[in-house]
């Protein structure tokens, strides 16, 4: 076992952990945390890909490294928008659950146009 394989497998496990939380946890904030955990695992696998590509005097392939930087920024933007939605939902309703049945019961019977 070398460091690349070790980190690659760790990335896979972390991605799995994150995916579990994203699917199984009913609270949106926890889903959001899980999404970021999942992202971290996927980025780590990309980091391993970069490390494997070390050449030309570089410690890693700079292309995947740059892509991870862009990916981190995009994930942050997504988190920011989701947190804003979540905060407003909480202010309006006092809860943050995504229970479809409850939503449909309270949905007003009128046009949305």
């Amino acid at each position, binding site marked *: 076992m070398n460091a690349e394989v070790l980190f690659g497998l760790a990335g896979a496990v972390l991605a799995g952990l994150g*995916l579990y939380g994203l699917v199984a946890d009913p609270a949106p904030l926890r889903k959001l*945390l899980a999404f970021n955990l999942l992202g971290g695992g996927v980025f780590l696998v990309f980091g391993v890909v970069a490390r494997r590509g070390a050449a030309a005097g570089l410690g890693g392939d700079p292309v995947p*490294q740059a892509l991870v930087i862009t990916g981190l920024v995009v994930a942050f933007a*997504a988190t920011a928008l989701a947190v804003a939605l979540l905060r407003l939902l909480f202010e309006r309703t006092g809860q943050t659950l995504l229970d479809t049945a409850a939503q449909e019961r309270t949905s007003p019977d009128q046009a949305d146009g």
Partner: protein
Amino acid sequence: MTMGLLLDFFLVILALAAGWWTIGAKDSFGAAVAFVAYGLVLALIWVRIAAPDVALTEAAIGAGLTGGMLIGASTRLESAKQATRAGGVTRRLAIALSALVAAALALAVLGLPHPPPSLAAAAMAALPPTGLGNPVTGVLLAYRAVDTLLEKVVLILALLGTWSLAPDRLWGGRPGRKERRNAASPLTLLGQVLPPIGIVIGLHILWVGANEPGGAFQGGTILAAMWMLAVMAGLVDVPAISRTWLRLLVVAGPGLFLIVGLAGFVVAGGFLAYPPGFAKPLILLVEVVLTLSVAAILLLLLAGPPEREPPR
């Protein structure tokens, strides 16, 4: 080497523990704190796999901004009705799905080819015309410049989406509540002392990014953090979102990038191509303005939708 591998094992165990805690913690606050720890461990791992640029970004964005934002949200939503745990069927399905994906990813990692493909040599070979010394900056601002440009538009859309959640009557107003300035508070002292230092560090990181790890995004994050500190200390207020200068600051970076890109049609024979000899100054100019825009966007994303009446 064995010493190094031992350290790597230790880091992996820490990352897995922090990840496990993020998912399994009882309350969201604990989970968010665990997530920050996770981000910091990942930043160390990025150093271990020779990706210092990513390590800086992970620490600043992953652990710092994202973590801070999620901790903030967890304290605000503390009184939210606690969700009941997922039902048995959902959980079993989720376990099966996540185990499947983790196993598939692991299998794919083990099956990666030898020798591995790499663009490292190509990236280095294309670097001299740009005048840059850091190939990661070369990828972000030259070879794959359009990704970076579009990523800034993604940030602006996230900001617009955040603002869109304001009530109609508060549109154009200032985000957040006014922080009271308290001369005796240690926060005020920090807010007075740290920003000048932080601004210097942020600009330094931006500047060295051309040749060493660092760059527009990492520098912008530090500037935003200093700005936020001054806001929290009550020294300055978040500007109203209708301010023309603020709007200009937000779009200046991507706007200038786009203009330089379009100018490439005329002076360099292609969109987002740099004219020979002018590549480095142009890239640095774009980076400086991008840093300022990034700082403004990040501050505004942290501040949230307008919550106070717009100025008359």
